[in-house]
């Protein structure tokens, strides 16, 4: 005990000796308090008071006693759990195949694995109905089936897994690509077969990435409402949609807020389970020693099986996007297949302002979100300070709450001095920064847990301070996580709808609100054209980012860090 308390005191003294580090930690706590805790508290308070501001738990008793809401809660857990499992499996399949086999078309598979991260709100769900509905191109056109249950759990799971597995892929791609092949070589040399090498070496070392990924997928699926709104239908309620409907359909903000708080409970439990489970294991693979390998991790038949599975999934994904493109380039989606560019003329006429506004918002929030995510990952994994776990948990809060409710929380929190932000660019940017930062944090945490602290300790020994270590050593090592954070933040900024719908104003509007409005008024092809523009912008950004960061990665590799 004396030794422990002395160690704690030493750490605190070290913290105080580094004023820059201390300042950054305090600044981050302040930011989290203002832009995450404050709005969440406003939501919580409103769920505990009546219209006159008196304490009242009626919203909760009504929610918990309602059989339909309890069904919604169970369904949310079911969909969240299934999305986490299958999304992770699909993501792992793609990540493993492109990193551990010499299959052809790796570039194509990587592109396909990232594409669905751009899943246009509402139109994406409609395209699934176009493929699997009563007159669906796949169900009716290919198989002659007319009663596939596209409305309900099946249709929703197709959308959720497709929509969220790219998040898993981006994280797991970063993780698997940094596992040294020499470890498998050692296992094979010691007599293990390929399956044993995978099960005993690769799989355990992927666990931090797998756990982080499943946490993010579970939480994000719980909070998602765009896909369930269209595909779940009312016979299969989920709480995120119920929260939205309580507020927007029944004009009951308190009831919706109570449901959102209810939805936070499984997210918090999932977070704690993940922390307990993964924190008991530690896996270090990046040690700075050069490595080479000529052996392959899988046999030829297994390679082709994995490749075939990926190609099958790729065909499915391309069918979804092909349907959307088809809608965008014909006069009337599903009815009049005359080719036309009129839908795009409409987009660039009616929607030009929304496109410009969306780009401003996205380019402002993306670098802030990603960089803040990397800094927080660095602090959480490499520094010991009071409140570290609280910082991580807090950062996940606004990610876990349905966007509808956090959007209202932002209005309630920032609609009066001293922080008067409603109607401004800032309120949208800040919402996106803090709402989508967690994926960057989790990706950074997963990667950093694989980096031997000795590399950074060597830099400290040579006289570097924390800022220099972060900028020169840590950030280059976790470039894959930084890339995934940038991609994710940009994509979500471009495709966010549920919180954004409460934060857009006459001065700042977004493409996604246009998509919703066009599809609501029956202009499906115009909605598809907006979606194609959205996809084009995002793919352009990702392409440019890859070109830029590839140079960075090349520099890192030429420094002999031996990632392969």
């Amino acid at each position, binding site marked *: 005990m004396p030794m422990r308390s002395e160690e704690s005191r030493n750490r605190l003294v070290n913290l105080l000796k580094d004023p820059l580090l201390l300042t950054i930690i305090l600044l981050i706590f302040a930011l989290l308090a203002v832009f995450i805790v404050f709005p969440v508290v406003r939501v919580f308070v409103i769920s505990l008071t009546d219209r006159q501001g008196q304490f009242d738990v009626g919203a909760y008793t009504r929610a918990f006693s309602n*059989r*339909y809401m309890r069904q919604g809660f169970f369904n949310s857990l079911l969909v969240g759990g299934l999305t986490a499992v299958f999304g992770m499996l699909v993501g792992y399949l793609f990540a493993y195949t492109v990193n551990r086999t010499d299959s052809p078309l790796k570039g194509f598979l990587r592109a396909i694995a990232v594409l669905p991260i751009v899943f246009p709100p509402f139109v994406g769900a*409609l395209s699934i*109905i*176009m493929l699997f*509905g*009563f*007159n*669906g191109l796949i169900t009716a056109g290919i198989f002659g089936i007319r*009663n596939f249950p596209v*409305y*309900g759990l099946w249709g929703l799971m197709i959308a959720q897994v497709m929509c969220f597995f790219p998040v898993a892929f981006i994280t797991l791609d970063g993780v698997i690509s940094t596992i040294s092949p020499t470890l498998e070589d050692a296992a094979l040399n010691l007599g293990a077969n390929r399956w044993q090498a995978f099960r005993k070496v690769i799989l355990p070392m992927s666990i931090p990435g797998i756990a982080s990924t499943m946490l993010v997928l579970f939480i994000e699926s719980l909070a998602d409402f765009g896909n*369930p*709104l*269209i595909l*779940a*239908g*009312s016979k299969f309620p989920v709480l995120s*949609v119920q929260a939205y*409907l*309580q*507020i*927007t*359909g*029944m*004009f009951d*903000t308190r009831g919706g807020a109570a449901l959102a708080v209810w939805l936070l409970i499984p997210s918090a439990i999932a977070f704690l389970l993940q922390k307990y489970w993964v924190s008991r294991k530690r896996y270090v693979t990046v040690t700075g020693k050069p490595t080479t390998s000529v052996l392959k991790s899988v046999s030829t038949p297994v390679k082709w099986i994995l490749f075939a599975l990926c190609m099958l999934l790729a065909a499915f994904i391309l069918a979804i996007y092909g349907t959307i493109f088809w809608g965008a380039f014909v006069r*009337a*989606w*599903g*009815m*009049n297949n005359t080719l036309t560019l009129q839908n795009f003329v409409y987009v660039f006429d*009616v929607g030009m302002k929304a496109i410009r506004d969306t780009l401003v918002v996205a380019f402002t929030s993306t670098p802030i979100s990603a960089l803040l995510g990397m800094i927080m990952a660095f602090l959480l994994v490499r520094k010991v300070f009071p409140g570290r776990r609280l910082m991580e948990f807090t950062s996940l809060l606004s990610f876990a709450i349905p966007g509808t409710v956090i959007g*209202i929380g932002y*209005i*309630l929190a920032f*609609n*009066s001095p001293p922080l*008067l932000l*409603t*109607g401004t660019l800032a309120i949208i940017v800040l919402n996106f920064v803090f709402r989508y930062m967690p994926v960057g944090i989790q990706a950074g945490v997963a990667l950093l847990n694989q980096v031997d602290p000795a590399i950074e300790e060597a830099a400290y020994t040579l006289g570097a301070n924390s800022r220099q270590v972060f900028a020169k050593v840590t950030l280059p090592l976790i470039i894959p996580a930084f890339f995934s954070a940038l991609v994710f933040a940009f994509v979500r900024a471009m495709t966010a709808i549920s919180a954004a*719908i*409460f934060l*857009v*104003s*006459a*001065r700042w*509007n977004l493409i996604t*609100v*246009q998509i*919703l*409005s*066009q*599809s*609501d*008024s*029956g*202009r*499906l*092809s115009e909605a598809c054209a907006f979606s194609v523009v959205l996809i084009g912008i995002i793919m352009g950004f990702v392409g440019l980012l890859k070109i830029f960061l590839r140079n960075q990665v090349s520099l890192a590799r030429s420094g002999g860090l031996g990632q392969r």
Partner: protein
Amino acid sequence: MYVRRKWFNLLVAALVVAAVGIAGFAQRLVVYSSVDEANARLILNAFSKATGIAVDFVFLSSGPALARIEAELANPQADVWFGAPLENHVIAKERGFTQPYKTLAVYGVSPEFYDVDGYYHPIYMNPLGIGINTNVLKQIGAPMPESWDDLLNPAFAKMIQYPNPQASGTAYSFITGLIQVYGEDGAFQYLRNLAPNIQTYTQSGTGPSKAVGPGQCAVGIQFTPAFFQFMEQGYPVTVVFPKEGVPYEVASVSILKGAKNLAAAQQLIDWIVSPAGQQTIVDVKTYFYPIRSDVDFGSLQPLSTIRLLPVDSAWAAQNKARLVERWINEVLPY
């Protein structure tokens, strides 16, 4: 050279002063529109042309708009809430979100459409209708429905969509309309009998048309503008108004309490209720029905041929929570 620069500076200064002057005198109006973006754009652009008032608007469907207006009460961002059914504006009035304005333009408008206190004013009305995809009708071998009872035909098994009343005023209007046809218990019995024919209860008021248009279901029940939009684009959709009678919505407009551009807001109300404003709603093909009878209805089916069921807005608002709960408990499980 020095003299030339001096004159150039004077010219620049004059231009700056002129620009500031022009900007200073221009009138603006900020609108939350619950009329969909495309139609709101058509109507509000016509208003700008007629009055010279520039309009900034953002689309927020009815529910998000009301939730947002409530949340922003301390510092309103908009001057006018444009669109959304009349019942929602009644709620906004009761909760103190709006302010009154008596317009002289109501002469010629039916009294049931507007508030005598002047808190909300009608823009247009929409009857609830049945949208039918005629191709799908042939595929399933079902007859053309002409009444609510016709929809109970087993030939329509899993081929009908209507919204969840929890999600939208559309479906709630459907329920209150059926109550006037069948009585309350009769209405819920009808809805239970209809349940085997339901493909899905959509979670937005305009969900059914998105499935009817592309042929993924046969029949949708919702307010009719989106169906007419699909027809205009060439989809094989037709609209039927059941002979027992149909409820309708009145989309309304309110001036928000604390509106910063009050004079411009009042002008919008004067214009939208006037014969010129109402004729514009028809002429720009919104497929909304005008609330005045003294305008030309164009291609819309005359209201005289549709049996409209009267709406008791106060009763509907007071009983909404109870009736929606009853629907969830007694209809949804079937």
